């Protein structure tokens, strides 16, 4: 059995090597890694892109915390999420879409099935071989980015290497969909379009679920913020043994109103959060893997990343009727909410996703085993 699997792996490798797209994706991954991590340097006053004049930015200056936040942000939000998670993933699907349809096409399937290997074993081996494309691409692409960041900036983002197995897992989710469509239709085009369509549906479900959860977590953060403010004021008053003055009374009133509104909103949103989570239970959760990766590598959320380039609480960006303190609080609430959303239970997510994938694979294997070719 090992001999057969080894032969199939080597065959898949030869198949990939023969595909121009394999080399194109590889070159693009290298190009994106170089563009994102090797085209600038940090100076004592900020950042310099290529040979252009340095841009002064204290947050990004050499030795600042901003440098690490910037690199982690670029790695997670752009390299992993946009390029590898979407771009390379779609190209990988295009490259591997014909693998199973070719395997079971007329003239090929007869030879494959006439070998002394049970059909389920044969099919599952072919499926695993299909993951080879992404595994190779990810290992080379992420490995290159890891090395460039490490060597150029002396910042070794070990947790970024987790992207290799996690994104391979993401591809496995999608490839299981491709596999069952391939077995049912024996068509490369149907397999590719069907997978992309279902992936889009999965994305929509997760997007809606995320939005609901973000709205809920924002209200929870608001509740916590207002509770903290009220508690702090009460503590100050208790320490100083005095009654609140007019300004403090107004503020306390506003905070209590906000607290009440946020609690009501959070309560009303909770059933939606629960229902969205219930729907997500039955789909392969591709987005959770990237959320977990961002969480485990402590990558900045969107507003933290943007905070490197502009202070949203300063007068330039802040609406006139909102105080600087309120703006900062709102910003920190949003950060807390975004972090809460990406704080997924990875084990539960992977297990339930694998459950869905397992059902798809079982059906595909069963159909392959029973079908007359």
């Amino acid at each position, binding site marked *: 059995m090992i*001999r*057969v699997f*080894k*032969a*199939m792996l*080597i*065959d898949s490798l*030869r*198949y990939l*090597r*023969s595909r121009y797209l394999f080399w194109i994706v590889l070159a693009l991954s290298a190009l994106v890694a170089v563009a994102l991590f090797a085209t600038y340097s940090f100076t004592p006053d900020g950042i310099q892109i290529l040979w252009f004049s340095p841009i002064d930015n204290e947050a990004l200056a050499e030795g600042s915390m901003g440098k690490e936040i910037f690199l982690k942000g670029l790695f997670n939000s752009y390299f992993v999420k946009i390029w590898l998670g979407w771009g390379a993933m779609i190209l990988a699907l295009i490259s591997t879409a014909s693998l199973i349809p*070719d395997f079971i*096409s*007329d*003239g*090929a*399937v*007869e*030879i*494959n*099935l*006439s*070998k*002394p*290997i*049970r059909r389920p074993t044969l099919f599952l081996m072919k499926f695993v071989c299909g993951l080879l494309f992404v595994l190779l691409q990810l290992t080379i692409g992420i490995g290159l980015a890891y090395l460039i960041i490490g060597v150029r900036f002396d910042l070794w983002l070990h947790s970024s290497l987790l992207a290799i197995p996690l994104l391979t897992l993401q591809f496995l989710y999608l490839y299981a969909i491709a596999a069952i469509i391939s077995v049912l239709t024996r068509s490369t085009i149907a397999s590719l379009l069907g997978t992309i369509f279902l992936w889009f549906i999965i994305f929509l479900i997760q997007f809606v679920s995320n939005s609901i959860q973000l709205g809920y977590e924002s209200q929870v953060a608001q509740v916590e913020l207002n509770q903290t403010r009220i508690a702090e004021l009460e503590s100050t008053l208790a320490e100083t043994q005095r009654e609140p003055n007019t300004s403090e009374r107004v503020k306390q009133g506003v905070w209590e109103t906000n607290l009440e509104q946020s609690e009501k909103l959070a309560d009303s949103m909770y059933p939606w959060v629960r229902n969205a989570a219930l729907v997500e239970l039955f789909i392969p959760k591709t987005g959770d893997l990237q959320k977990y990766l961002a969480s485990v590598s402590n990558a900045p959320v969107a507003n933290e990343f943007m905070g490197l380039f502009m202070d949203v609480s300063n007068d330039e960006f802040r609406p006139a009727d909102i105080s600087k303190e309120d703006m900062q609080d709102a910003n920190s609430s949003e950060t807390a909410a975004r972090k809460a959303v990406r704080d997924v239970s990875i084990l539960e997510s992977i297990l339930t996703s694998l459950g869905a994938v397992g059902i798809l694979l079982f059906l595909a294997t069963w159909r392959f085993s*029973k079908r*007359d*070719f």
Partner: protein
Amino acid sequence: MNTTVDLTGVEKIYRGKTHALRGVDLQIHPGEVFGLLGPNGAGKSTLVKILMTVISPTKCQGTMLGKPIGDKGTLAKVGYLPEHHRFPTYLKGKQVLDFFGAMAGVSKKDRRARSSKLLDLVGMSDSANMKIGRYSKGMKQRIGIAQALMNDPQFIVLDEPTDGVDPVGRKDIREILLQLKAEGRTVFLNSHLLSELELVCDRVAIMVKGKVRQQGTIDELTKDTRRYEIQLHKPSDLSKASASIQRQLNIGDVGMDQESRTLYLPTTDPAAIQSAIDLLRSSGETIQTIHQHRSSLEDLFMVAVSGVQGGATPGADRPNKGGSQ
């Protein structure tokens, strides 16, 4: 007698509608070259695919190499070249042999040894490093045959092995088949080229509409079609001559063809022919030619397909009978 393949009552109904096989009984003996003939849609490929576990039968009793049909382990001893096969075009010839050899469970050492030997056998050593995508149809067939032999099989199933191969290539393939037979292997050939089959097959089966109509050695199948044909020069009365021979020699129905002035004597006995010659000469007839006739495989095929004797044996007035069915 041991059999390599022994099938009884094999049936296949596709999706409850198309009755592809209607109870096929077939025996293939060890060490023989067995040919399966039949028109398009007769069910030949379905039968082969059942043997190779590519499709599952609706009903099947039988064995291949002593194991029930469908046993995957048995396939380690079986080589198969399907009709219209498609090898991965990104592989080189020798990589095809190596890959499918490994799939059949052959060790790396044996694969290396066998692939160079087989490339020689099929005359593809010079093209072994060329990609399949650049091969001609004939080259693909040759590599396909080599692929089918990679696991050193006891039983080899070749579906249209000479399809697309030029006459020289066909001769080469014939020689390979005879060599395989000489090595004691059993070969199952499925082909449309009847003359090819006649040259190499020990036994044949003719399949029509999902049933085996005739099965046996070519001698057995043509036994009842053997006869002497006597062509007369300007006969006075062919009918009278025919009736006279039939009456006096008691050799059964003597046929005739007025146009070619030929009498058909249903006997293989040379002595009976001497008497017929004497009789014709004594009645003043001039004999132009005498020859012994035996139906070809093509004749048998046409009879089985059409249900009547005709085509290549004009004037013959009774249908052939099979040797064993």
